């Protein structure tokens, strides 16, 4: 499955751009994270890395559909 993923904060600098295209064999959230860590090892240096699916934080075992809005959420720092 080919997925377009939204990027924010420091992940824009690490991956480049405001979105990135990822081709997944394992289309679970965990599969997406593993692929991202493989492709961009610098992501492993972050304090945390969460995935949001359709504007909600997603558990590792959630299966992503190609129609979902998917975003990488690096450590938040609002306020």
């Amino acid at each position, binding site marked *: 499955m080919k997925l377009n993923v939204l990027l924010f*904060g420091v992940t824009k600098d690490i991956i480049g751009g405001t979105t990135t295209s990822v081709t997944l064999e394992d289309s679970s959230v965990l599969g997406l994270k593993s692929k991202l860590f493989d492709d961009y090892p610098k992501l492993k*240096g*972050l304090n945390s890395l969460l995935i*949001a699916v359709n*504007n909600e934080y997603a558990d590792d075992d959630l299966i992503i559909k190609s129609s979902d809005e998917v975003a990488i*959420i*690096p450590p*938040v720092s*609002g*306020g």
Partner: protein
Amino acid sequence: MIEITESVLDTNKVINSVMDPGCGGLNVFIGNVRNNTKGKEVVHLEFEAYYEMAINELQKIAEEAKSEFNVSKMAIVHRTGKVEIGEAAVVIAVAAPHRDAAFKACRFAIDTLKQTVPIWKKEVFEDGEVWVSAHP
């Protein structure tokens, strides 16, 4: 009133939005941009939000505050884009029949906001910039 905006925050408007004749206690938190972080001079900040999700998460905070504490109204506004020293990045206002609930709900809101709401802060220094909290 739950809002994310690039405009300068209007504290009065946020406070007025929670005014209620049944409420004796209002607590307000204003998070301002400091001129330094760990002693290093800050030029300005830049905030970025995952807009739709951030609004969702802010609404969850207001709903949870209302169900956890005896509060009547809560407003949260957060700024995005470039924010200068001394300007407000966030304003939270809570109205409750009694002050204890107002203080607790306001504290809960800012603490939770900092943990869950997808907003990112970049500190800009004379010699570089850094996304806050990204790295250990």
